[in-house]
């Protein structure tokens, strides 16, 4: 690939490509009005190259779908001195999870296809006394749920939440898994999230709650302020601001909450799953393998203790343990054996 800039095709100057970019920018802004929709249809129908230019511009815009994984602290400045991540893995994410987690950015598709006709909002209006609405994500799936008050929940792999908005408060129970909450502000109706013995109360903020078997329940606050309390001990209440982690220790009477400040980068890393990614910074391969097992049925097997304790850093696709293993093998000089339901990492 060694083109000079004086090549025959002017890459920026093609008027059709420029129009394609204009339309994608317009579609990204919001729904077209009738006249615009007609104009776009006519433009597309006029020439097959127009259709291609629109698709090409849409794919260039979609290339940045992953930009959210860079995290809010990314400024785009002085990037050369500070490379962000070690080897990501080159393979495609499956359609469903991407579709779900990109729902927010899917303005292009949604604005054209029209709004969803049937959602929890309509359901709630038709059946106001409905019991809790249940949302589930399968293994390997990341699911975005929009609630009637414009709050959103992003469910990580293998999670379940029960949402009950019928009372005077907005109640959510995280039965299992990991969920990122982005809470619409409503002073009158605070939102409470119950996860095991923990309860989180928020007015309008964003935070993650974890309730995974075998690990202490945890709250990670990304934005705003939340109260976290042990339900059996009202005196245990702690108030946590952005970039704070609250962890529950022990159970019953001796239970307590600890609060610790974390960096914005840590929050970004631990919520990378929202983009279908897992981020590791200096974690052992054994830990990484355990983390991947939450997302995929394919196990990463490491028999060699020396390999298992080797630490790695990087951003990886959550549903691709094989790709992860190959990337690790490539950089650590290991071999990969692939079998039914497992990938084995070993030294020669």
């Amino acid at each position: 690939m060694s083109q000079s800039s004086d090549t025959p095709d002017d890459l920026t100057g093609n008027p059709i490509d420029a129009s394609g970019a204009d339309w994608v920018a317009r579609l990204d802004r919001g729904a077209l009005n009738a006249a615009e929709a007609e104009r776009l249809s006519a433009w597309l129908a006029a020439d097959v190259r127009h259709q291609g230019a629109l698709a090409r511009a849409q794919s260039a815009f979609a290339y940045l779908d992953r930009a959210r994984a860079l995290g809010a602290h990314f400024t785009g400045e002085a990037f050369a001195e500070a490379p962000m991540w070690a080897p990501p893995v080159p393979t495609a994410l499956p359609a469903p999870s991407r579709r779900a987690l990109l729902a927010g950015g899917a303005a292009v598709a949604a604005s054209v296809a029209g709004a969803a006709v049937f959602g929890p909002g309509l359901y709630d209006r038709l059946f106001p006394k409905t019991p809790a609405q249940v949302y589930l994500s399968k293994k390997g799936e990341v699911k975005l749920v929009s609630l009637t008050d414009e709050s959103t929940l992003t469910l990580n792999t293998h999670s379940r939440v029960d949402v009950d908005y019928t009372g005077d408060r907005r109640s959510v129970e995280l039965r299992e898994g990991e969920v990122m909450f982005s809470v619409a502000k409503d002073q009158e109706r605070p939102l409470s999230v119950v996860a095991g013995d923990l309860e989180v109360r928020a007015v309008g903020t964003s935070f993650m709650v974890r309730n995974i078997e075998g690990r202490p329940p945890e709250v990670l606050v990304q934005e705003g302020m939340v109260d976290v309390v042990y339900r059996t001990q009202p005196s245990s209440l702690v108030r946590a601001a952005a970039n704070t982690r609250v962890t529950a220790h022990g159970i019953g009477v001796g239970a307590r909450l600890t609060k610790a400040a974390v960096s914005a980068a840590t929050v970004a890393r631990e919520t990378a799953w929202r983009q279908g990614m897992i981020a590791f910074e200096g974690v052992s391969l054994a830990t990484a393998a355990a983390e991947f097992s939450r997302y995929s049925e394919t196990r990463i097997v490491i028999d060699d203790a020396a390999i298992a304790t080797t630490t790695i850093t990087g951003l990886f696709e959550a549903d691709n343990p094989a790709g992860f293993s190959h990337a690790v093998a490539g950089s650590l000089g290991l071999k990969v054996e692939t079998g039914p339901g497992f990938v084995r990492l070993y030294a020669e």
Partner: protein
Amino acid sequence: MVGITQDRAAWLARNVLPHEAALRAWLRQKYALGIEVDDVVQETYAILAALASVDQIRNPRSYAFQTAHSLILAHLRRSKIVSIRRASDLELQGALSDTPSPEQVAQDRDELENVARVLSDLPAKVREVFLLRRVHGLSQRETAERLGISENSVEKRVSQGIRALLATFGRGGKRGAKSLEDEEAPRRRDKDSE
């Protein structure tokens, strides 16, 4: 349905866009055949966008090259001046190596870093819009409010950013300051002003 689905756009972004520079380089060698490279690239995207499913495509790079190849063949069939020698210029072999180059492997590996680099290389005014819109996930309206500029300006900068990205991919993902620097200046085709 106008345009393509988010899924297809994402597929193209991952599987075709990174090979576009190589495709253009190959097409350029066929320039003597009277091919407009931009036309063929656009038509190739149109075909890939219109496919009912891409699930069966194991090697998108080859598929894109083959699509372009068949477009050129159709073009040659239509034009009456094609000689046998000219048709034989259109060897697809060699353009299609199934093993990606070491550069390609390196490029794919650093994909998120590439996203970061592409964003960093955008002109400042375009970049601030893209950071809010694509990294922070704000809507165009929210982006406009945050920056204190009109929604029209945001939309225009999004378009400029997309053009810059397209130029970068057409060039092979390399840093292309040359064509991006002048984005700040008013473009001759822009009708509305900021």
